[in-house]
Structure formats: C-alpha cells, structure tokens
C-alpha cells in the first residue's frame, strides 16, 4: 500500500512532464496533421538551455535564492525554445505544407537527428549532472520503516504544471488565437478566406508547444538533476503515446494521457520489471492505436465511402 502510494506520487509527477510535452504533439497534429517527430528533441534542447541558464545564474551571478533562479531559468528556457521551434517550423515544415504527406514526417525525423547531434557535438556526449536544486520533502505516512514522501520538487512540478495548464486552457478556449487555431484545424483554406492568418496561427502553435516543452524540460532537469543529448527520444515517444491515448487533437486528453502513462510506467517499474518499463509504454502505444485509435477523448475517425 505504501509502495503504491509512493508510486502514485511519483507517477503523477512523471505524468505531468509527459502531459506538458504531449500537448505539443496534440496541438501540432491537430492543426497541421503531422506527427512532429522533433518535439522530443525540442524538449531535450530546452533542458540543456535550462542547464546553461541555471549555471550562469548560480555559478557566475551567484544568485542564491533558488526560487528566483528557477523562475528566471523557466522564462529563459521558454523564450529560447520558442524561438527554436519557431525557426524549425519556418525552415523545415512550412515549405512542405500541402506537399505530400511523408515529406514533413521525414523532415521532422531529420530535424530530430539534427537536434540531438547538435547538442552532442556542442555540449559533448556525457551526462550533465548538477547538484540538486531543491531539497527536502514532506513525509506523508510511515509504516514499517517505509516512508511515503512528497518532495518539494514534486510539489513544484505539480504546481507549475497546474498553473500553466490553466493559463494555456484560457489561451486556447477564450482568446482570438484559440479560435483561429480551431478554425485552422477544421479547414485551413476556409479559415484563410474568412481572414484568419493561417501562417501566423501555425507559427504560434509551434511557439506554444515549445514553451510547454520548455517547462517540461526545466522540470525534468530539476527533478532528475541530470540530462544528456539522447534524452529526447524516449520521453518524446512516451509523450506521443500519451497524446494518442488521450485522443490526438484533444488537449485535456493529452494531459490525462500523460498522467496515465506516467502512472503506468511507475507502477510497472515497481511491480513488474524496471528493465521492461519502456516496453510498457510502447505496448500501451501499440494497443491503443490498434484497439482504440481515437483514444479516450478523440473523435472517432469514420471511413466514409
């Protein structure tokens, strides 16, 4: 029971990170119907930027307040990652819009290879570890020497995720941008005809996706304290799984899918086999796509004859 409780806490934390990345997949898929393969690597780049920013703040500028440092790191990572994703969309995807379906996918795979190798070449292949940013925890229950804890790190992740999701939900559900996005999802040409700036809307979608991935990257760095150039692929695929599980195109679906994947992964590691924890996520992906391709909250895709 205690193990379960602890895994629940860990799973929700991990799931929040996956959920933030998954929103990026789901939004981009929703608007241009493309699996943005490079999104996992954008997340990894964000974690590296957060790493650099954190080092500048703590070792050079000597900022001692972790809260301030973390806040600045978050903002810097979000700004920079948004810029990266904006440029990626301009260079690698926009010229291929309306071209045949596989071209953007291959371009995105190429971009993914490029990004991870760029980080490997520029920052070196070794794991980058930093001293823990945030320490301390609450002990919730103790039983037979097993303490169920909720660490401050986890609390921060929950809090930041929740706040961001509310802002983000407001942005998509209540603003002009959100309306333009939904219009483009339905029919880009029609949206353009009624005066929606399609290019700009798509660009902004990539920017938002990147900003959320940057939050995920920063949280990832803070939580694990270590990051390497190859950390984009597997979290990327898992977040994509989350998006599919929630129903691709559905924003609440992405978040709930993320939480589910996080939970499945931690529970699987605790009760079955930690070696095969990635198999759990990949199997969920395959099983969902095969038996429930519209996901939990997606619209079913009817084959009209």
């Amino acid at each position: 029971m205690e193990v379960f409780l602890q895994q629940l806490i860990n799973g929700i934390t991990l799931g929040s990170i996956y959920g933030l990345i998954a929103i990026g997949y789901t939004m981009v898929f929703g608007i241009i119907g493309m699996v943005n393969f490079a999104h996992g690597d954008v997340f990894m780049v964000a974690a590296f930027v957060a790493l650099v920013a954190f080092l500048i703040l703590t070792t050079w500028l000597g900022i001692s307040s972790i809260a301030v440092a973390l806040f600045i790191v978050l903002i810097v990572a979000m700004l920079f990652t948004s810029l990266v994703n904006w440029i990626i969309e301009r260079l690698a995807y926009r010229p291929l819009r309306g071209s045949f379906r596989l071209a953007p996918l291959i371009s995105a795979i190429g971009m993914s290879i490029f990004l991870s190798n760029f980080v490997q070449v520029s920052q070196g292949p070794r794991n980058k570890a930093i001293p823990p940013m945030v320490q301390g925890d609450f002990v919730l229950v103790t039983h037979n020497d097993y303490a169920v804890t909720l660490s401050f790190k986890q609390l921060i992740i929950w809090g930041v995720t929740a706040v961001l999701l509310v802002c983000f939900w407001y942005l998509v559900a209540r603003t002009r941008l959100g309306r333009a996005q939904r219009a483009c999802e339905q029919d880009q040409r029609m949206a353009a005809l009624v005066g929606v700036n399609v290019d700009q809307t798509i660009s902004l979608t990539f920017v938002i996706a990147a900003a959320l991935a940057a939050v995920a990257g920063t949280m990832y760095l803070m939580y694990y304290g270590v990051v390497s150039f190859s950390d984009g692929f597997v979290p990327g695929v898992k977040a994509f799984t989350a998006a599919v599980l929630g129903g691709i195109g559905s924003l609440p679906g992405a978040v709930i899918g993320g939480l589910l994947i996080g939970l499945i992964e931690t529970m699987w590691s605790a009760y079955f086999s930690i070696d095969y924890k990635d198999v759990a996520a990949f199997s969920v992906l395959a099983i969902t796509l095969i038996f429930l391709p519209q996901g939990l909250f997606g619209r079913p895709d009817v084959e009209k004859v």
Partner: protein
Amino acid sequence: MTEGAANQRIDTVAALRDAAITTLLAFGLFLPLIGFHTVTNIRNELELDTRWPLLFSIVAVVGVARLAYSFLLAPWLERIKLRPMATTTPAWRATFGKWFVPFCIGFVIVYPAIIIAATGFGGALKWVDNFGIQILIYVMLGWGLNIVVGLAGLLDLGYVAFYAVGAYAYALLAKEFGFSFWILLPLAGVMSSFWGILLGFPVLRLRGDYLAIVTLAFGEIIRIVLVNWVDVTNGYAGISGIPRPSFFGIPFNANDDGFAATFGLEFSPIYRTIFLYYLILALALLTAFVTVRLRRLPVGRAWEALREDEIACRSLGINTTHTKLTAFGMGAMFAGFAGSFFAARQGFISPESFTFLESATILAIVVLGGMGSQIGVAIAAIAMIGGTEIMRELDFLKQIFGESFDPTQYRMLLFGFAMVIIMVLRPRGLISTRAPSVFLKEPKPVPVDLVKQGHG
C-alpha cells in the same frame, strides 16, 4: 533601365535587412548552446566555459550565407524558373536512360578490381568494406523497405526489427547448431517474414502516421527484448564469434585448407571481403530483380493500387488484408536476408546496431530516393551512406581546424541536416516519375504529383 536600377536598390536594402535579421536570429539561436559550453571540472562539478570566437564566426557565416543567397542564389533560381521548360526529352537523355542501369551494374561488378588496381591490396580493404559492402547493405534494405513503403504505401518505421530478427536468427542458430550460412540465409528470411506478417496483422487497419508510430513501437519493443533477454541474446554485450561464411565450404583463413592456400594465393583478408562484397551484391540484385518482377504481377499492381486508394481496391474484389500482409512479409524477408548477411560479415552483433536511427535512415533513403523508384533508392543510399562514410576520411580538415577536430562527430549532424534540406528542396524525392507496369503502345512515365503516396 532606371526602373531596373531602382528594383536593384530596393533589393539591396531588403537583402541587407534580411541578412541582419538572420544574423540576429542565428545569434539568439546559437548563444546558449554554442556560446556556452558545459564542462565537468576535476572536482566533478559542472562548470561553464565560453566560446565567443566560435559563436561569432558561426553567426558571421550564417549572415554571409544569407547575403549570398539573396544576391547570388535567389536570382539564379529565378532565372531557372523563367527558362521555358523543355517539352521533349533530348536524344542524349534517352540514350543515357537506356544505358544507365547496365552501366551501373557493370560498374559495381568491377568495382573491387578498380579499387585494388588503384590502391593495392592494403588500401582496398577499407574501400571495398566501408564503402562497397556498407552501401550495398543499405541499398538492399532500401529496396526491401521500398516494397512496403514505396509500392504498398504502408509507412513502416520499425523495419530494422526484421533486420535484427535475421541477424540474431543467423547468429544464434549458427553458434548453437553450426548450420552453414547457405542454410541459414533462407531460414532467416523465412523467420523475418513470419515476424513481418505477425506484426503486420494487428496494424492493418491503421493508416499513415499512426501505422508509422505503431511500427516504431514494435521495433523498439523488439530491441528492448534483445537488450534484456540476456540468457539468449547476451544483452548489450551482444553475440560475438559468429561463424563467418565460407567459400562454398572453403573457409577464409590462413590454414592449409583455407581459401588462399587452396587456390595457391598468398593469404590476405581482402579475399573474404571481396567474397562478401559479391555476396551482398548478389543479394541486393536479387531483391531488385524480384521487385521488378513483382511490380508486373497482379500482387505488385495490387500493392500500388492499395497505395492509391484502398476503398477502390476493395470494390474491385481485392483482399486488402492479404495484399498488405504479403507486402509486409516480402519486405521483412529481404531485411532478414540482409540481417543474416550483416551478422556473418561482422562476426559480432549487439542491439546497438538495431536502433530506431537505423529504421529512420532506411526510411529516409526510400523517401529521398523517390518512393517506388529503385534507381532513386540506390542513389539515395550511395549519397547518404557514402556521404557519412566519407566524413571518416576527411583527415585533412584537421590541418584547417586543428588537431582536436574530429570530422566523424559531425556525420549524423550533417545526415539529419541533409534529410531536412533534401525534403525541402525535393519533397517527392530524387526520381519523381513512376514507370507504368504495363502499356499498350508506349510506356509514358507518370508524373509523381498524380501518384498518391500512401493513404492517410
């Protein structure tokens, strides 16, 4: 005249502005990860270094490149666009087209001889092995995947799994039971094909990108199993000491009954390499030959029809389930052949060789080549694999950039970059026509923008 001059001036201003913006963006983009360098110091703590000179030179290069684009490349592209399109293909093109394939086949057959003549026995090993065999493996894999992706339009991102099945099938059976290569080659093909059909079955209903992702998941699952099922596969450590193929029973070694001694030659490792070269060449040509034949048979036509419109296929009485499974099975079989060849050539295999990157590379080769086009796939394989292999040979760059410069590091970086660039420039791939499989009067190539590339 004056108007032209005015245009020119405005162009200059715009070009300068563009260059300035690009430079600024490049600065922002490269500042965090090139301007700063995270290094671990002696106390094992992470520290920051700066690399301003490097950052500024890269940003400057980007700015200059942008200017060059505005002033040189863009006007040139404009002129090309204005030039009237040739309506008839010139005679030399037709002759060239007719002789191109025989010439290529002839060239690859005499390639080892040319290399030996040029570099001698010692130098030839590298050229035949790293370039010849390595590229041919990818050509074969590309042609195999071309059946699934190019012809049947089924997007497969887990193709490397079948390559792995072939390789492990050969390695394990050869080590355990000592079967010879020639028995295990077809067996590996059959086993891969079986897995192809087994994994193909549940995903038949899926379309487009979803299919790609599921096959990716399957590919990864197989790899993770290879990593963790240590009793059988020896995990990350891999399997070594895999028996090498013999020359129809005569082993390639320095012994008295070895190949060199039997034929009265001086022992050299090059003989085995040349044998392997011709082996993979034969396998690749077999793949090509079978594919060419299949395209003209009802299955092949059904594959292409399936790529164009699945519902129409069903309305014509075609069992799309069987059709897709044969495509999966065929593609997987050739991957299995290639896999067992790979294991026999290396003598060592580990899960490292069967990562997602490998699948992505093969898919990229198929798409860059122009889906469905065998020649395109071969050219793409030569360009992409040969290109990255060449990076190993560029030692002279050390003289320019200093001793610590290691060009091989940049292989995959450039590989990814090239994938993006080629897609942006030629989204339909290098060869952008489809040859009809049958004709009444004359075969007219179908322009590829009419060809659908998989349903989705």
